[in-house]
């Protein structure tokens, strides 16, 4: 089970990122949980400076902008 967190304060890019990650994860049939982290101090706690960021199983795998589809696919 992958524990996915998308960090971001609700801008359009964050929503796009969530949709993309969700779609790819479903496509790959990997069981996952998805959480949206909007709290500023929590986001900064991950050391992310540019949102949206993506955290998988506690590790920051992406920060700044919507990740490319191929990058998202490589996470699963």
């Amino acid at each position, binding site marked *: 089970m992958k524990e996915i967190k998308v960090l971001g304060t609700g801008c359009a890019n964050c929503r796009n990122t969530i949709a993309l990650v969700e779609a790819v994860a479903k496509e790959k049939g990997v069981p996952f949980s998805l959480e949206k982290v909007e709290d*500023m101090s929590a986001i*900064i706690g991950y050391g992310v400076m*540019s949102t949206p960021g993506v955290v998988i199983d506690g590790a920051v795998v992406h920060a700044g902008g919507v990740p490319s589809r191929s990058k998202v696919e490589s996470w699963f």
Partner: protein
Amino acid sequence: MSAVSIETSSRSKLVHWLAGISVATVAWVVAYSQLTAFADWLVDVLGLSRQTRFGEALHFFFYDSPKVVLLLTGIVFVMGIVQTFFSPERTRALLSGKRQGVGNVLAASLGIVTPFCSCSAVPLFIGFLSAGVPLGVTFSFLISAPMVNEVALVLLFGMFGWKVAALYLGLGLLVAIIAGLVIGQLKMERHLEDWVQKILGGQAAHPAGETLSWVERFEAGGAHVKEIVGKVWPYILAGIALGAGIHGYVPEDFMASFMGRDVWWAVPAAVALGVPMYTNAAGIIPIVEALIGKGAALGTVLAFMMSVIALSAPEMIILRKALKPTLIATFAGVVATGILVVGYVFNMVL
């Protein structure tokens, strides 16, 4: 898939990109050289004459819209690629531990090329501070990043030529550097919100050590075009339409009476007017061009433009999460003063 076939497919992708970019460049140059002819032709086809007000306004619109869109698409693509070399993490690493002065200059310059979105202004701000970038240096970056951006520069270049673009670049950097120096000298660290001060206690930076291939960089350029041009084109068209209206219908020298260089209160009025307005450079510049055509002074109009872009109410609301009101007010005051000086200097020199 074997390693060999992955390599072949990424090579063929690269060839595709390079071929596409070459074709697009040629098409771009041809289109750019035909702008006046295109506008003339379109006005002609519609059975209008440039002698009429409506015809002249329409000509302005048909000439400016494709010109701005072409310039913007080209530069945004190039900047999208350039920005893949400058992540906020790298910029922070370059700035951390730099002292006042050198640090401010570097921060303002890096603000031009580092990808920045006002929605992540707060995490960026705190990320910088926690890595040991001084407060004043961080502010230099934060002021320069939105104000001196490629969209503003390319539009100024397209509308007024390289001299005005260069002046805007130089003076924009100067405002960012000096405002950052002043804020640094005021030692306002205690005016950060308490939760921010706590975070600054202990914090490990996260290195984003990714190396990108050229295909990925080109893709980033393409994505940047889609994102920026896709977002700003309605503002541009609205701005050009308004500019066209001013161009066609407002009498010559009309603006000179209250936006001319002899009107001493015009610069502060322009700055005050710009703060509550929030648009990007793309929407404001066509209006600026039309105003100048009608006798408004360049300094006054540029001050207005800087104020609209650099001092926006929404950005201050975002920053309020991390800064106490005193610091926000100082930030706004220092930047506004800088813009005022720029406006007056421009009006005096030109």
